């Protein structure tokens, strides 16, 4: 036990004294959150919008003209009722709809309240917010011009997520980022740390001591696990505060699944280190064999549906793919273990497999 603790202490010291690496590992993930968050903002112009105007009059005509003239909007149609809205949202032919009441002219004249419903396709909450902002601005100005001192305008804005259930959401990048961060920390840093001992020759000293290889690995891995959790928390905090990314499910379950994925990545890192004789090779294995599939085949950037069949088949063996399903489920859909137990089981199975393979190959000697 003393040996294990002594080992953990040593590894922590290494980590803390390598200021450059530490800075990168801690600062890069939140930085990536910001980059992704702002970069994903799609260009919000020519928003296809429908005006539902059951009783057209002079005032509503004015609003119609303004919408048609605005560069931001593309007024597709003026409908008499909300009947077709559902189908149009679902098909994606419209992103927003303004629903006016009757007697608009009269209400304006009398300064009565004017309830207007603003429906926005909210499956992309970033742009959803922006679109709402634009529409609200146009309506606000129209109202103020018509009734300079009035305050009866009531805009009821709501996002209708259920119109786009396949979730082409920018929030999805956060779970992907978490997976990416954990893969780097757990797999790559573990592999590098173990092969560094081999390269500098200190592995010789370790092997000639009574400490078992499993204790060496466990000791090496512990500080990175702690660091990985810290990093994940930083990512979640950044995503929450800057972009209001939701966290609908149980935080405990989320952290638990993160813990599981950390183990999976660690086991992978160990396997890599047993195959790589030098740090450089370990890094290349980690990048090519782990990072690339995690980025490209897990559904992080490209949706799984858009992959050709054979790539989709390969993605089944990429642990990050399952982890992403789990995390997205928890964060965005608020799913619980009851729904996600199959994916969790798959991750557990993968972890066990890698651990067995890795520990078989852990050397007790050189050469």
């Amino acid at each position, binding site marked *: 036990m003393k040996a294990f603790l002594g*080992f953990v202490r*040593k590894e922590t*010291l290494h980590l803390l004294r390598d200021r450059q690496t530490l800075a990168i590992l801690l600062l890069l993930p939140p930085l990536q959150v910001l980059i992704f968050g702002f970069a994903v903002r799609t260009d919000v112009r020519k928003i296809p919008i429908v005006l539902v105007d059951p009783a057209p009059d002079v005032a509503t005509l004015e609003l119609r003209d303004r919408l048609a003239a605005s560069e931001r909007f593309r007024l597709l149609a003026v409908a008499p009722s909300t009947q077709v809205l559902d189908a149009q949202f679902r098909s994606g032919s419209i992103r927003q709809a303004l629903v006016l009441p009757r007697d608009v002219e009269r209400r304006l004249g009398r300064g009565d309240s004017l309830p207007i419903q603003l429906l926005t396709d909210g499956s992309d909450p970033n742009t959803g917010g922006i679109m709402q902002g634009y529409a609200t601005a146009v309506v606000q100005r129209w109202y103020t011009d018509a009734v300079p001192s009035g305050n009866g305008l009531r805009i009821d804005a709501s996002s209708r997520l259920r119109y786009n259930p396949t979730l082409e959401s920018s929030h999805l990048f956060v779970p992907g980022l978490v997976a990416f961060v954990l893969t780097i920390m757990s797999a790559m840093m573990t592999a590098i740390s173990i092969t560094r001992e081999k390269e*500098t020759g*200190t592995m010789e*000293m*370790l092997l000639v001591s*009574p400490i078992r290889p499993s204790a060496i690995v466990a000791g090496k891995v512990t500080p990175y696990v702690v660091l990985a959790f810290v990093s994940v928390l930083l990512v979640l905090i950044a995503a929450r505060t800057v972009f209001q990314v939701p966290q609908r499910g149980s935080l405990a379950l989320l952290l638990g699944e993160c813990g599981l994925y950390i183990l999976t990545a660690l086991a992978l890192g160990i396997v890599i280190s047993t195959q790589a004789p030098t740090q450089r090779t370990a890094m290349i294995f980690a990048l090519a064999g782990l990072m690339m599939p995690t980025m490209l085949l897990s559904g992080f950037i490209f949706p799984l549906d858009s992959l050709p069949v054979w790539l989709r088949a390969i993605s089944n063996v990429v642990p990050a793919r399952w982890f992403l399903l789990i995390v997205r489920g928890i964060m965005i859909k608020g799913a619980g273990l009851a729904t996600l137990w199959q994916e969790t089981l798959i991750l557990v199975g993968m972890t066990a497999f890698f651990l067995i393979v890795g520990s078989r190959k852990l050397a*007790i000697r050189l050469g």
Partner: protein
Amino acid sequence: MTYEHAVETEGLVRRFGDDAALDQVSLQVEPGELYGVIGPDGSGKTTLFRILVTLLLPDAGAARVLGRDVVRDFWDLRTRLGYMPGRFSLYPDLSVAENLGFFASLFDTTVAEARDTIAPIWLQLEPFSSRRAGALSGGMKQKLALCCALVHRPEILFLDEPTTGVDAVSRKEFWDLLGRLKDEGLPIVVSTPYMDEASRCDRVSLMQQGKLLVTDRPGEIGRRYPRPLLAVRGGQILGLLGALRRFPHAAAVWPFGDSLHYTDRRSDVSPEAVARELMAYVDSAGLAGVSIQPIAAGIEDAFMWYMVQEPAA
């Protein structure tokens, strides 16, 4: 567990690809002995040491350390032996004290428990105890590595080229430390490419290209030098060297510091007679101011002799 020899090997063989790094190496180290393995880089010393400290498996042959088999009983052995590998194998970004503490914990002990054992070395290291190991001078690094090898109070010590790349004075200090350890009964097996360090060992094996050339007490090796050996001083070295090598009975002529060592081919002539012959030859070659004297052979003379006897690869 009782055992006769601290280390015992029989016909050790180890190959790397086509190269025979170790070729039928058999030796014995007695308890409490300071044993030297002398040989240049590539002679197989490191391979031998790695097998003895259970880091490598031999391809053939057997080895026992402290009576235990290196292949079967390695976990047992790893708690009992101390090892200092050829490269500086400590952590450069940890301090002296942290390195020591770490290695102590590896063996489930503390630095405090090892105080007595490492006392003489710690005396020299203590002023630097909070300095990063990477910032130490070469001589200090070696001392730290020795300390870490001793911190768990091993029953035998293996030091692979502990003084390589270190200046002559630090080397001397290091060997003084080894002498003190040996006085306390610790068997020590040391490898070194420096021939002059052989004289500080109880017994030595000269090693070249995977084979043991000769094993004996250092003094004996010199005494057993099989041909007349003379030291030739004075005059201009290159000229003298050339002339001596042209002497018909010359077996080998090598520079040795400020003199040349001449070995005669004949085993039946006395060194004094050879000296007289050489003097006459040198005179007739017109080389003046030369002095010639028979000398006792040192380890280096012996090594070079045996090197040449073994056909090179």
